[in-house]
């Protein structure tokens, strides 16, 4: 109740609206702009708001910018969501094992995390995609490669402190299997800070995907906002809207996700204060 109040405060409402807007755009893409968004259906380089058939204009090859933007929202949300899931799953499993088992396992897993963290996230993603080839899956894996260490570390720290709580001993005395204790009983208690990290991961995934697409390492067969910016860059001086429109879309989405994450964080903190 109070947590919910905390969530729906200023930033939370704006964040929810922004993300919901993007989600609705993604959902409505096939309705509003049916067919292939990459189809060359208009005169090239129509300015926005000058032709009602192409409200946001057309790009250099005569593709409908609105259709690209809406379908791009899908790709963006899919990449963000999938990368978050992959990152959290890997991070949670590794963090929980490291925190709960401790000792050599912890040491080994954390050195592994160090190794991944010592390479800048984007370089890691760049290297992976250029080896594995651009596709949705490889972009998702590439983002996760650099991102899993954050939830793993946060989770490990949480688990380490929770591990000392007596309820863990109580479960052991009851004869509960250690992995069951770790994942079913302790893990849920450690999740709240990781959930707030999820927003950061989504935002970061969207940005990395955009950057990869911008560098031509996105999936060339689907529209993404990063690829739209890259495409528009060549005519930036004469048709800046081609880069600006997807750029604003990225800013809005990342801002929305971050606001949502902050609001979730506040709500979780409020809830924990209650507990």
């Amino acid at each position, binding site marked *: 109740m109070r947590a919910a109040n905390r969530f729906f405060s200023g930033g939370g409402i704006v964040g929810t609206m922004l993300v919901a807007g993007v989600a609705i755009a993604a959902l409505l893409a096939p309705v509003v702009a049916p067919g*292939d968004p*990459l*189809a*060359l259906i208009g005169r*090239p380089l129509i300015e926005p708001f000058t032709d009602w058939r192409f409200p946001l204009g057309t790009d*250099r*090859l*005569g593709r409908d910018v609105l259709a690209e933007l809406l379908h791009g929202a899908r790709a963006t949300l899919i990449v963000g969501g999938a990368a978050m899931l992959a990152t959290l799953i890997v991070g949670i499993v590794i963090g929980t094992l490291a925190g709960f088992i401790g000792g050599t396992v912890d040491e080994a897993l954390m050195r592994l995390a160090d190794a991944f963290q010592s390479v800048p996230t984007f370089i890691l993603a760049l290297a992976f995609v*250029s080896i594995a*080839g*651009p596709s949705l899956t490889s972009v998702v894996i590439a983002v996760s490669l650099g991102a899993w260490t954050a939830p793993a570390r946060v989770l490990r720290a949480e688990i380490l402190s929770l591990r000392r709580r007596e309820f863990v001993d109580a479960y052991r005395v009851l004869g509960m299997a250690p992995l069951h204790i770790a994942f079913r009983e302790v893990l849920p208690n450690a999740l709240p800070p990781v959930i707030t990290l999820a927003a950061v991961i989504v935002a970061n995934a969207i940005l990395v995907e955009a950057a990869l697409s911008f560098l*031509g*390492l996105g999936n*060339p*067969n689907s529209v993404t906002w990063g690829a739209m910016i890259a495409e528009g860059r*060549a*005519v*930036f*001086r*004469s*048709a800046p809207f081609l880069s600006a429109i997807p750029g604003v879309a990225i800013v809005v989405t990342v801002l929305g996700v971050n606001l949502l994450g902050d609001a979730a964080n506040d709500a979780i903190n409020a809830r924990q204060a209650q507990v």
Partner: protein
Amino acid sequence: MELRPSRRSVLAGLLGSSTAASLPGAAWAQATPRRGGSLIVAADSEPRNLNPAIVASNGVFYVASKVIEPLAEQSYDGNGLAPRLATAWHGSPDGRSVTFTLRPGVTWHDGRPFSSADVAFSALEVWKKLQNLGRVVFKDLEAVDTPDATTAVLRFAKPTPFQLIQNALPALTAVVPKHVYEGSDINANPANTRLIGTGPFRFVEHRPGQFYRLERNPNYWDSGKPYLDAIVYRVLPDPGAVAAAIEANQIQLAAFSSVPLADLARIGRVPGVAVVTKGYEGITYQLTVEINHRRKELADVRVRRAISHAIDRKFVVDTVFLGYAETATGPVPKFDKQFHTADVTTPGFDPRRAEALLDEAGYRRGGDGVRFKLRLLPAPFFEQTRQFGDYLRQALRAVGIDAEIVRNDTPGHLRAVYTDHAFDLTVGSPVYRNDPAISTTILYQGGLPPGVPFSNQYGYNDPQMNALIAKAAETVDAGERSRIYRDFQKLAGEQQPIIHVAEFTFISVTRDRLRNVANNPRWATSNWADAWLAS
């Protein structure tokens, strides 16, 4: 108060627009050249090996052609060639020898005299053995006789068309000093990075990541030239930076389309800046769809012609190239009057005919509207090859072919196409170098070993085509040879083993104080002895 614009400003406006509309540099040639001044130009790459006798590529020529000269240069006038180190050349009727008369009184930048021994050494040891293009053209070169210091006679084991040798002179015959290279590992010789030549400019300095600097050769054989004191190549890999630098008058030339096409219309309106579309005809690029004939669908000529019908070449020229290109009909560009023929049956834009052909070939649309699927690999060489890939995917989809784009970096692309043959269609951009035998017929000739980049790795092996190419290679008579190449174009138009979409060259953006711009068909890669800067 008089609000009418003054006559002077109208005139200036007219002049401005006429420069933007790319008058040839010859228009300024009448003015009296001014000596002195340093020309600063943009360079977007820094080749490690600058020796044009080994690496015949535009990036190398751009710098090296001012230092090391070929036997002759391309020209808009006369028979298409202007003398450089050779003053005259003629071939024997049997095609077994070509005799060059060399320019007397020429000295190397280190002061040693230039002689026929240098030509003999360059031809036998460098062009024939090491040069990427020379290995094909000079493969039958047997010996070079040097009866005196100003005569060199190239002798061939098999008849080699004199026409081909002539056409190869500008790009393939850079002469390097024998006394510097003899007895050394030519590929590793330090002179490959600190060039020593006979050209109008001496190589002074290369600071990696910053600049190359060339200075006037005071002992140049063409007395009074060059006009410029120095040429500085500023390394500017970012196209945006190049445009800004030329607008700010920090550089006077951006060659090789280093200003993006989309920016040309805007930058052409900047006072003092001119957009020049001439001066690259000798290095025409061709936008092509290369086809893997190992795919059974694509082995069918009807399918290939259908694909050709699906492509709107006019649209490609207007949107992808923003008008800075021409539609293509076949493997020889329109500029090359010597060989080009318009009398071909290359399929034009006709999607309905394309669909009919595909139906006829037995590939009907399935329930999802798709006839069959293909992998499409656009070459990463130019922005236009990538963009055309996007266009082609849509054009093919319109006729029921689902092409999935696979993107690679340059090494990955070369490996996939020319070694692994892991493609169905690829967008290519081969260079036409003045004669079909230099780098064009190799794309059509069957039975080549795998792994050779920019050769026929397409699985195309047609006896009729092979016969034409072989016959042209040994035909010495120029007229007959040209006729064979016209047949070659007709056959290529009919069979469409490679689909030619557009011909494009580069665009230069210059400050208009740079004069004698684009006054030959290889201007950016010629010696610039007559270029000068107005004050």
